[in-house]
């Protein structure tokens, strides 16, 4: 019996140490190659090689993955023939995440995408039309991929989002496709996440286009955050509604926390060191967030929020100052395509929050800007 108790205790101890341990997760990166064409993202690098590129992806699950990309027209140098080769532009790809197909679409190359997941969660008209016409096949949900349909599509490439404990390699073996890991969500820097557009750019043979787009994003983002860096008066903000009475809030080193900070805001969990979502009980949320000036809220439903409706949903909401003062910043994700597009427009996201925090700082090319994603809920 003593042994059992000992084992159980060690399990509990392991769990309690998990939050501390997870902080180092994305700090690690060993990108020191001077030729690397990637600047902000920590989980992939692109190196020019003879007649092509080497793409290295670090997803933390298993060893780093290396892909050698060559344009269809060039002959592949001998020393690379035994490597994992991707011929570009790819002619048929399956994209598991909307952050993947949205770049194909933005590049005007959506015809290269033959399959995707969860099309019913998107409001993207072109995608829904292509699915309805049968030009793109919906191959199920990320938790339940329809393997048969995937095999039947015979894609050259499957772009997947890796998660701990999930092995997708059998999909590659069965369909004959190259499996390309796309852990964009592990990037905690907004520009790092946006930089993943370069991977799709390479796959479409349009790396020049995505490089230019990305450089523009960087320029605009840095100009804006530079302006906000010296503000003294920083409004406080907290984030997210509870889901089934559980409050998950972004960690202090997360992507959105970084945007709050760069927009001259004061995120109330900024001192937390996690890059993922934190589970916090309602009392602590109330204690810490009650006096916050703003409340960022994501609405995944089709019907827009109103203060009245939210009040009926949870009687705690009116206790928050941000709610009382009607300072909810709401994004209707389906309407604005938040999950597909916003990660490639961190400058726009940043401008959204600056608009609410320090509107006077939106000058020059941002003059007369109105928010794209996060709008103040007025009634």
């Amino acid at each position, binding site marked *: 019996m003593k042994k059992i108790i000992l084992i159980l205790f060690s399990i509990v101890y392991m769990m309690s140490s998990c939050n501390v341990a997870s902080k180092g997760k994305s700090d690690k990166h060993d990108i020191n190659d001077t030729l690397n064409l990637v600047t902000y993202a920590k989980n992939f690098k692109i190196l020019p090689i003879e007649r092509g590129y080497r793409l290295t992806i670090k997803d933390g699950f*298993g060893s780093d993955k290396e892909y050698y990309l060559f344009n269809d027209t060039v002959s592949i140098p001998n020393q690379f023939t035994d490597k994992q080769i991707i011929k570009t532009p790819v002619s048929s790809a399956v994209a598991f995440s909307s952050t993947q197909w949205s770049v194909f679409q933005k590049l005007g190359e959506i015809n290269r995408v033959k399959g995707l997941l969860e099309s019913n969660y998107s409001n993207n008209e072109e995608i829904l039309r292509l699915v309805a016409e049968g030009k793109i096949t919906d191959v199920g949900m990320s938790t339940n991929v329809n393997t048969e349909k995937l095999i039947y599509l015979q894609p050259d490439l499957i772009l997947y989002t890796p998660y701990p404990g999930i092995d997708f390699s059998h999909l590659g073996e069965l369909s004959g496709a190259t499996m390309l890991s796309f852990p964009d969500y592990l990037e905690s820097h907004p520009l790092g996440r946006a930089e993943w557009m370069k991977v799709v750019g390479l796959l479409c043979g349009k790396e020049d286009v995505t490089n230019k787009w990305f450089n523009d994003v960087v320029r605009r983002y840095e100009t804006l955050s530079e302006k906000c860096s010296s503000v003294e008066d920083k409004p406080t903000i907290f984030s997210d509604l509870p889901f089934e009475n559980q409050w998950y809030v972004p960690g202090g080193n997360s992507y959105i926390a970084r945007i709050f900070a760069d927009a001259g805001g004061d995120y109330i969990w900024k001192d937390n060191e996690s890059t993922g*979502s934190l589970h916090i009980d309602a009392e602590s949320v109330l204690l810490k967030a009650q006096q916050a000036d703003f409340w960022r809220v994501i609405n995944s439903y089709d019907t827009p929020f109103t203060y009245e409706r939210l009040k009926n949903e949870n009687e705690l909401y009116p206790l928050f100052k941000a709610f009382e003062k009607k300072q909810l910043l709401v994004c209707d994700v389906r309407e604005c395509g938040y999950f597909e597009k916003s990660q490639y427009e961190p400058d726009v996201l940043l401008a959204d929050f600056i608009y609410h925090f320090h509107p006077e700082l939106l000058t020059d090319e941002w003059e007369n800007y109105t928010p794209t994603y996060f709008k103040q809920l007025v009634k």
Partner: protein
Amino acid sequence: MSRNKINIIILISIIFLGIILFILNLFIGSVTIPFSDLFNVFFSEESNPTVRTIVMDYRLPQAVTAMFAGAALSISGLLMQTLFRNPLADPSMLGISSGAGLGVAITILLTGILGGSALSTMGIWSNLGVSLAAFVGATFVLMLILGFSSRLRNMTTLIIIGLMISYLAGSLTDIMKFFSMKEDIHAFVIWGMGSFSAVGTSKLMFFSISVIIGLFASLFLSKNLNVILLGDLYAENLGINVKRNNLFIILISGYLTAIVTAYCGPIAFLGLAIPHLARFTFKTSDHRILTPAVMLIGMTVSLLCNLVARMPGFEGNLPINAVTAFIGAPVVIWVILRKR
């Protein structure tokens, strides 16, 4: 006609039904394939390679997995029900499935902790993956239960201990999920839904042989199981070591549950319902008939569930757990009402 003859006819019909369902499992799925293409896969050298992959590398291993998993869980349920003399006993009762769940939760969490840095250097962890974790968790609980059962005489007490371990493992799993980041529990959700497709061609041989060993062993238990129905005292008078007998039954039942849960996730209902279905169909409690009957009915019902889960029209595959009870419960009620 004597009862024996009737039973033989029923047995043959079930085998026949099972074969038909097995073939349908190969022929029907979410991708509709013309019959001529299917025919070519089996009878012609020039078959469409894509169709061949779907049928031979995806549907076939899935059907075989469904068959063995169904048989294993049903036998495990029968052993539990007889051992505990309780019609509501099922394979999950001793906490073995919850132990498997705990194993999965620990691994996924470890993967989360070690994420970015250490894991890439110890790639073996991520490759061994979820099934191994589940198996280790299930075996750990099985060992605990065996330890307890060697000390306890009363099997009812063991049920209570089993349930407590089950709650304990469940609550530890929940606590871990609570402390995990949202992204990290994705794999747990998938595993928890249950699926016959996770075994795949590469692991199929290992899975099948492991299950067959357990099923084979259970065939030799029939006499010992019959004796249990008579009561412990009677059994001892017959010269049977009750304690060792019980231990062996728990071992086989737990082993079968552990194997199936590791590869397919926690699959509910089959283990509870199939033994009843067999008892009512064959009108007997003689395990020399019941054991093979439960195996065959388990295989057949499981193939039926797998077929329904992948019917064209359902976008994606329905989780197998959603289907087992939906198909099975009305069948059991119908059989009971008709036979009464």
